[in-house]
């Protein structure tokens, strides 16, 4: 597998791992999380090798004697050699070796509609919606990583979504669950120590060069508020002060911000099937997309990630058929941004990418 790599020299990141010895069948490639249909139990994980020579669907089932991954896989978190797969409607977290995908443990107690996981202070922190219809029972569960059990919970505001750690503190975006959130909670010493107002429906959180970046999608036009502008909010994680805000231009507020990823000094994000690229130190967001994935046949952009000079996007295809992953060049001397490098059919509802490289 470490053989002929399809080389793309990179502008944002350097290829660090090319040529190293793989640590398992699913090393040196990307894990694609396919969330699956609600109540149908067809969540899965696909693997695509960095050289595109191997792609395999349903790797969790294949490795673990045909076991079903579960119902609606929400996210994966890596901690050392382990991958924590949060399976929302199965009310569980599957812990596997991230390279071999062999099952290590299953966490079930005090896990209720889990969303995302982060690691800090030698513990795991899992956001949970509780009963999604109940706005008052949402919490962050603390996982003892030696026993893989939940040992305590921290109540938080409705709809806790992504979670990241920085210097022992945790930051939680409140997308709002079935309603509309607009804050980021700060957790220190296992209690909510601060609440930072951000834009509407904050989701992605990334720590980049010591700053916390929050992607706020904006409310949909069906929301009681009507549609509101999506924005990127840069926060100083030590003071919780907002350092910068990049807001979609008025003319673009006809659709919500899609998925975003920050790599190096650039923000990549989607609106509909268009992909935009913007420097993190820019003062305004671009109005012209870098490329449009519809040109290669994508009907939607559900997941988006950037790694090793490549842009990965996933098309959920309406969840009625298997979705597709499109891999594009992020732009360099050899390939302009938006050059399609690979297209693969994966599982149902591909939503996110996790890189083993």
């Amino acid at each position: 597998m470490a053989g002929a790599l399809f080389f793309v020299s990179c502008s944002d990141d350097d290829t660090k791992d090319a040529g190293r010895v793989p640590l398992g069948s699913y090393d040196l490639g990307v894990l694609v999380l396919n969330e699956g249909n609600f109540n149908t139990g067809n969540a899965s994980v696909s693997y695509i090798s960095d050289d595109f020579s191997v792609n395999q669907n349903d790797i969790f089932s294949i490795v673990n004697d045909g076991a079903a991954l579960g119902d609606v896989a929400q996210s994966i978190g890596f901690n050392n050699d382990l991958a924590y797969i949060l399976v929302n409607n199965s009310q569980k977290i599957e812990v596997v070796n991230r390279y071999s995908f062999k099952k290590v443990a299953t966490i079930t107690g005090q896990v209720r509609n889990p969303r995302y996981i982060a690691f800090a202070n030698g513990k795991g922190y899992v956001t949970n919606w509780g009963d999604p219809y109940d706005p008052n029972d949402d919490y962050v569960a603390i996982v003892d990583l030696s026993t893989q059990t939940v040992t305590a919970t921290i109540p938080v505001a409705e709809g806790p979504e992504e979670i990241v750690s920085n210097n022992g503190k945790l930051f939680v975006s409140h997308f709002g669950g079935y309603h509309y959130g607009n804050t980021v909670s700060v957790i220190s010493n296992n209690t909510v120590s601060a609440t930072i107002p951000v834009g509407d429906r904050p989701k992605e959180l990334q720590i980049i060069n010591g700053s916390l970046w929050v992607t706020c999608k904006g409310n949909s036009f069906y929301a009681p508020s009507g549609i509101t502008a999506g924005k990127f909010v840069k926060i100083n994680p030590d003071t919780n002060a907002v350092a910068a805000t990049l807001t979609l231009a008025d003319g673009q507020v006809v659709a919500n911000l899609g998925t975003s990823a920050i790599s190096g000094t650039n923000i990549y994000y989607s609106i509909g099937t268009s992909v935009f690229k913007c420097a993190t130190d820019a003062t305004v967001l671009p109005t012209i997309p870098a490329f449009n994935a519809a040109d290669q046949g994508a009907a939607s952009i559900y997941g988006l990630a950037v790694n090793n000079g490549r842009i990965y996007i996933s098309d959920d295809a309406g969840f009625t058929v298997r979705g597709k992953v499109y891999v594009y060049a992020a732009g360099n001397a050899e390939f302009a941004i938006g050059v399609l490098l690979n297209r693969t059919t994966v599982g149902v509802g591909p939503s996110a990418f996790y890189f083993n490289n």
Partner: protein
Amino acid sequence: MTAKKLFLGVLFLMCQIVLAQKDSIALKEVLVSDYQLKHFSDAQSVRKINDTVIERNQSSLTSLLNYNSVIYFKENGLGMVSSPSFRGTTAQQTAVIWNGININSQLNGQTDFNTITTRDFSEISVKAGGGSIIYGSSAIGGSIHLNNDLSFKKRFKNEIRLNYGSFNTFGGNYKLAAADAKTSVNLSISRNSSDNDYEYLNTKNLRNENGQFYNTSVNLAFGYKLNQANVLKLYSQVFESERHFSGTLVSPSRSKYQDLNTRNLLQWTASNRVLVSTAKVAFLSEKYKYFGDFDSDHFETSKAETFLAKYDLNWKISRKINLNGIIDYTKTKGIGSNIGNETRKIGSAVLLFKHQLLKKLEYDLSIRKEVTNAYQSPVLFGFGTKFTASKHYNVKLNASRNFRIPTFNDLYWQGAGNPNLKPESSYQAEIGQEISFGKFNISATAYYMKIENLLRWIPSGNIWVPENVGKVNSYGVEGLANFHKKLGSHFIGVNATYAYTVSENEMLKKQLAYVPYHKFNTELVYSFKKINFNYQYLFNGQIFTLADESDVLKAYQVSNAGIDCNFGSKNTYKIGFQALNIWNENYQSMPQRPLPGRNYMINLTLKF
């Protein structure tokens, strides 16, 4: 508007009074509750399921029709939400008609077939194909008719039926049928409950957790003859249930769902030799509460209340020509956690014409137009003909345009609903043949159907929204056969249905998900004196669970057997025993939701 309503009201009343003054023919002893089903469905396939068959089957409408019709069911576990698919269509494209009134939910457009207790009805009919002109929205794949026909033959009959079986399943039903020449009453009270904690076959001690349910229903049909020309009828039903929604093989559940449905219909029929005039008023209500956690006080709820006024005049122009006009007005108010507070008003006019052209040839023409504030409504029309070549053979031909209107959820769901949706509409045609020789009947029907503006909820950013996106072409063949014979103390009866269904997404050119190509069922009944034996068999072909045909749910075969013995001489005292899924088939009609393995039921029936 008010003046117009008043005028219409006065007009109805005058018709009724004028008719009442004329002398009239004696009303027939049995009054059917669904006039058009009896008089304007000659050119279509209608399968009647009588009370003996209803009695032999389990009490849910799902179970009855799964084993006795061509309809395919998707059941979220035994007793849970059950959606029919008739001729490859969606659950919202099958109409359920209660004593002539469409009772599909105003909120989600379908009837949950596990919220209908079959024992409450004297007859259940399955009509295949289009019926929107008569019955309104949803009658695309076909319609199910729940009828309480009233007899004015003097009698006083009680019936008690009790059954108990595996998983602490209990069923109780009491029926009263009382009548004299002027008054007729049919009352039915039912209660069903189950722990429903069956084991999942081939697993390590996994059970159907959180699947317990109960339901209670009362159904009343009351008829009173004012005189020979006038009769008043009242139909009334209450259905109340609580179901914990069971989990799946891979997802536990803590949810709970409560239903409360009430239906009331008052009608006054006046008739003479030439005219039959019927005025109806109905009030229907539906309400649900959904608890995400059965332990929590937090729930989501919605309700819809429908008021309906209908006037129906049938004019027998000559011995060979029948003209039937219907106008109705429906006002529905929906209120709920997710739909706000919305009111929808629909007025419609229908004209049906039937002509016995030749001794062997009849045809019918029909048209319907709706006027509403909620959506653009197409003109519906239909044509049917029946050629009776001999008493052994006839051919039926039928073509119609039908529709399914957007539901309250589609239009008004907060954060997703789309008020600009169009109704789904279909063009369909079918040809059927019936052969009968004495006690042997066989029929075969081939159909073609084109459905446009299919309403689907599709992802749009972070939410799912309804849109008119799909186009579907369906075609197929249905066969029905039955035979029965009595030989001395022996009786033998056989029923069978088969459906071959192709239902193709026009864009993908693939079979729709959750539509089997093949479904077959048969029942064998054998009686010797007072001992009855029956055996049911169901074959359900493989289905695809994704629209690109990349994932399947395997075919299954399920058999049930029952035996009962009547110990009564004058009255009926019957004890019966049933083994369901006797070959212990491990099967699912929805992915990850196993249905029960072999289980047993004993039942007791007393008629006095």
